[in-house]
């Protein structure tokens, strides 16, 4: 896929849980490959639901979603794992595997993707060192602070160099200095071609990436300045 091509495309997408009202309505936008996007909006606006659609934890109730150029709404279930391996996810609640060490948590996507054990040590150790947890490689999540857990979650999301990185409030539990470091990591990945989508309330974070663009969500719908059908999100005001 060429840089600038659409990596994500939503067309009139709606999401409803059970028989309740729509959580997301009429979402239409596209994200280009290599873009850096912030998703903002008040609590309950539907940010996490939108991210779930992006990392293939949900299918929409209606509308069309294309990911990496393919329609994932009608895609057979058996093909989804291959797509999921191209996506890195930082969950809001981290979702670290409690009985695994920090090292094994970070190594998880590589093991799922079939990387040999001998090839795991160096990249995982380097990634842990990069997020400042080289000395806590053997620690279990329960013994890590909230900020440390968040960094393990981020290291796990980026270790396999995903084409699309989806992060839900990734700096919510870290100090400003670490937030800056993590954002720098995302920035570096983005420069290598990874498309980044970060859901956050932190305006300071948004303003720190000059080339980023913003999707604003309110009550399940995209608001101006994200644009109407097929309009790309506008650049965030620095």
């Amino acid at each position, binding site marked *: 896929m060429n840089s600038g091509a659409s990596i994500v495309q939503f067309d009139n997408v709606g999401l409803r849980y059970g028989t309740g009202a729509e959580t997301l309505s009429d979402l239409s936008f596209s994200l280009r490959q290599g873009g850096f996007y912030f998703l903002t909006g008040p609590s309950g606006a539907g940010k996490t639901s939108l991210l779930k659609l992006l990392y293939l934890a*949900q299918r929409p109730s209606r509308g069309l979603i294309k990911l990496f150029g393919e329609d994932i709404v009608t895609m057979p279930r058996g093909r989804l794992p291959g797509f999921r391996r191209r996506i890195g996810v930082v969950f809001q609640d981290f979702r670290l*595997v409690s009985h695994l060490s920090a090292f094994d948590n970070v190594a998880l996507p590589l093991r*799922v993707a079939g990387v040999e054990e001998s090839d795991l040590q160096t990249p995982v150790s380097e990634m842990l060192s990069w997020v400042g947890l080289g000395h806590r490689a053997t620690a279990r999540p329960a013994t890590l602070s909230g900020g440390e857990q968040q960094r393990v979650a981020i290291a796990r999301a980026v270790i396999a160099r995903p084409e699309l990185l989806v992060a839900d409030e990734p700096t919510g539990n870290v100090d400003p200095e670490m937030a800056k470091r993590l954002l720098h990591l995302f920035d570096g990945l983005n420069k290598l071609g990874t498309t980044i989508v970060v859901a956050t309330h932190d305006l300071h974070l948004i303003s720190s990436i000059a080339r980023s663009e913003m999707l604003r969500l309110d009550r399940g719908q995209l608001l101006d300045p994200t644009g109407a059908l097929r309009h790309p999100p506008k650049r965030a005001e620095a």
Partner: protein
Amino acid sequence: MKAGVRKFGTADARLLPEGRLSGPMPWVIAIMMFLTVLAAAAGLGLGTAAASLDDTTGNRATVQIVDANPDRREAQAREALALLQRLPGVTSARRVPAEEMDELLEPWLGPSGAESDLPIPAMIDIDLTPQAYGEMDSLRAALADVAPAARVDDNAQWLAPLAGLIGSLQWLAGGLVLLMIGATAATVVLAARASLDIHRGTIEVLHLMGATDVQVARLFQRRIALDALFGGAVGLIAAGAILLVIGNRIGALGSDLLGSAGLPPLSWAILVALPVFGVLLAMVVARATVIRALGRML
């Protein structure tokens, strides 16, 4: 990075928490296997006994010349033996010697019983071809011409109720083995479902990272295979020990019929193969259960 999806390796066994699939699972399988091996051993032992009974009585009959007059009895016995040795369907005919008759009667008549005036029938043991055995009436008719006092006893006829009982017990043992297999499979299904619930969080994370259903199912399969192997081995060892003790007790009885119910090497091989079959069954059932449950996730 390798293309495609590989199996999770040894290190990935840690993806599910250490410990057994579920606490009592190996012990439940051990109990199931213990009962299965005992039921199978009973079935196999009865099969051996039935075969031995067939060998002893199959296609065999005894001709008795029942006449109170010793001269007539002796003359008819000679005629009957000569006829039987000529008949094409008779493979062997043997007059039971007087000494053997004395031995047979001694428990009932005492040491001097045979020398008394009691009229003891003359007896001829015959082996028949299967076809001739099926046409016993023709044999009776042929004998009636030369030895009117002859009576043909079909050995299988008087052992038929015993053979029927053995056959029924064999079916019962087979039914018990099938029931145990079904119960073991049901136990594995319940344990796999419980384990899925316990590890739902881990499975969801693996799933969202792109693990396939088969990759996740293999984790459970490996764990349950270890449980089944442990339980199967314990059950087999316990049942084997009991079978050896029972075998010794039966040997001490000195009964021909019970003694014939021993287990030949092939039967022991079948019993040893049962836990292996149990492990395979557990793996297949666990895999199917997990894949079916994962199929309900996106």
